[in-house]
């Protein structure tokens, strides 16, 4: 309506054409590498046709691109289900651990693909651009930002590796501890008989689980906002007295209708 005033454009940077192309290539390269790794993990000891392998890997990568990382876990589990021999649960060797670590890394990558893939591509493309540029025109502020991003990326990777190894260790201990193998079952039976017939370590574990459940639930309740608490109270009351309230509403409606007539 009015003559447009000169507007101040927001200070946003749009990537140059070459950066755009290199960025997209880096994305595709990452998916390609993950695809090759998946192909090796899933079909290394099988004689599946190459086309079927390619199709399966393509479907998994599509799922990954759409943010559905459980495709990867499902594929790995299916592969192990059909290819792994029945060898007793305590028979872990270096190959098993190696496979599991690689698989976990791929699953973790797939879970954070939507953030991690662009971040890695952006970092790699910038490094390449700086390496190729005759006179790098990055300001010190941009360099600091890039360094911070790289540091954050490195921190994420390190945390991920540490957690993976820690969880793997706990999982191994649990599998050894639980009464799944015949030896573990005999051990549990002996401990239970020694404890006057009470199923060991039932009471201890149950009490601990109960306490943990109470603590978690309490924490959840105490972190409710005021509006959530009011909402819960109101909806709980309505649910508990739903039939009575509906009866009252219908009666009021009938009275109002008869008055109108």
């Amino acid at each position: 309506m009015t003559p447009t005033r000169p507007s101040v454009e927001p200070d946003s940077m749009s990537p140059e054409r070459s950066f755009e192309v290199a960025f997209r290539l880096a994305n595709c390269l990452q998916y390609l590498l993950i695809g090759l790794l998946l192909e090796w993990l899933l079909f290394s000891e099988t004689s599946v046709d190459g086309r079927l392998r390619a199709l399966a890997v393509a479907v998994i990568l599509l799922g990954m691109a759409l943010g559905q990382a459980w495709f990867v876990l499902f594929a790995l589990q299916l592969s192990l289900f059909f290819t792994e021999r029945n060898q007793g649960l305590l028979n872990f060797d270096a190959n098993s651990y190696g496979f599991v670590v690689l698989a976990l890394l791929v699953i973790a990558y797939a879970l954070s693909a939507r953030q991690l893939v662009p971040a890695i591509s952006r970092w790699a493309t910038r490094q390449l651009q700086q390496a190729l540029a005759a006179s790098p025109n990055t300001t010190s502020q941009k360099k600091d930002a890039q360094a911070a991003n790289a540091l954050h990326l490195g921190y994420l990777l390190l945390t991920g590796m540490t957690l993976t190894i820690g969880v793997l260790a706990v999982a191994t201990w649990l599998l050894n501890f639980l009464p799944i193998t015949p030896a573990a079952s005999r051990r549990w039976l002996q401990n239970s008989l020694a404890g006057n017939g009470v199923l060991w370590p039932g009471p201890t574990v149950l009490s601990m689980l109960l306490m943990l459940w109470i603590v978690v639930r309490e924490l959840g309740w105490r972190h409710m906002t005021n509006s959530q608490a009011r909402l819960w109270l109101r909806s709980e009351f309505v649910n508990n007295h739903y039939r009575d309230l509906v009866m009252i509403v219908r009666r009021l409606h009938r009275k109002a209708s008869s008055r109108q007539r």
Partner: protein
Amino acid sequence: MTDRTRWLAVLSLAGIVAGAVRGQPTLALLSLTVFLGIVVEWIRFQGSVRLGLPKLRFERAVNGLRESRGTLWAERIVHIELSVSSHSPIAAQVRIHDVVPELLELHPLPTWSNPNATLPASRIGLLGRRLWQQLTYSFGASASLPNNQLILSPLSAAHQLRYQVKTRAAGVLSLPGVRLTLTDACGLFQLHRFIPLKQTFRVLPDYFQSADMRPTIKRHNTLAKHGVHRHQRAGLSSELLELREYVAGDPPKSIAWKASARRDKLMTRQYESEVPVRVQLFIDGSIPARIGGFGKRLLDQSTYVAASICKAAIGVGDPVAGILIDERGAQRLPWAAGDLGFLQILRSMADFADRPCPLAARLTPSLLQCANALCYERYPELLDRRYNLIPPSLFAARREKLRLINVLGETFQLSPLELTQCYCDDVRLAHFLQRLLFEAGMPWMPPLLADGVESEVGPSRVIPLLIESLRNSIARARDNEVFVVLADPQSCNRQIEELLPVIRLALSKHHRVVFVCPIIEILESSQPATSPKSKDVFDLLVVAEQGRIRELKQNLKRELTRLGVSISFSGQRMAIQRVLAEIDMVRSGRARTQGARSR
């Protein structure tokens, strides 16, 4: 927990069982590790969020001001800066979305927004489009967020989010707050929160800013009629009005010595000054004038023209008054002069532009959908199923509706009985949903207003109020005032027979009447369309409406110009110039010749 986390958990538990039963250690180990990883990630996420979330601090500055109330102008760029700081770092990814109401438009518009894009008709088409968008996001360039959103990972220091918006129309603007989405690094867990950060602004209507809005092309070559002169009164100009006898107190320099010597008594020169021309604005704020998106309503055009006329008139010392008319009644604005008076009139127009809409008679799926989307944006924590309990139901749509009703119950503090009434009565639910959308700043258009509400209203109740207000103003008016009526052309055309007598009354008292009847841009067409652009229903409707509007314009013009009343169907500069030309005519004492063409 997100859906994919549930799938992962289910698959990992199934893998543990399968591995244990079949004696496959790698399968069992992998599945158990994934399950334990989910548990560990949950603990980390909860710890980071519960400790860090209460310590987040937000502060918003609008055009550099941090006060909770203020004033803005329509059709201007507004600079917003949102500062976020945290005393305790949050390891999760934080997506910050500063929610802006419909009255504001992001500037510049996001690259992905295409107002002319058409959605696919079928569900499969829609799904395909969404899949393609997700794939291009995964393989394509970095996704661009809208300007009012920011992703921080992690949030450890202070950050600023700066963006610009443009106000679309006059009214009352309320910036509600900030929507947060916290996600862990793997995307397994999500937490949504809305942090209220309310700031309310009155948006004053824009006006045409130009040095001289008077037409530069000579329009009428008429001489003043005999006996009709400029309106003159005593003042301090340099033009001589009359000579009168000297009275004690007159300044000695105003004594006309020669005339005094001739008449043998002291005579004083009396100078003249221009009489201010009083302008009265009658602004129609009925339902038809308010329907449409912000910036595209008839009321927006009317307030723009009215504000421009005010500015031009007050700028040369002419006082302006206004009467704001809608279905609820007529609100009289006192005579205003000077900058302060101009601002008071603008404030009244801004408040007038923000009125509650008529209540809906029925619940529509689009109303439910829109309300759901709004609640997801502004009340995400209230949609949490752990706290939003509902009576059992087999149908997902009904469950969604019941959760929405619970959110309404919390928002409007309904009693359990009122809540149950909403469960059972769709009309009552529609009223509350409409109120929710209106208070969130939605314009008067579907789904806030049901389709066809205009036809349900019946003959305009505003025209009788307009007639009464005109009659009262004529009764109180002094000489030669200008009445500017800014009204919906369809209401005027429908009840023109009732308007004509009061217009004749005004003209008989030597007042000027100008009608400004803005028309929606898409329906304005001076050329008769021979055929529509396509066989699309929308194009056919547009052509039919354009034909009807053309007839309506011709009829109104014929009826009003027969009486010598000016009419303009523009909501822009032409209308302003027409009104100012009429004011200038009153000031100069000229009269329009009978039968002169008006544009």
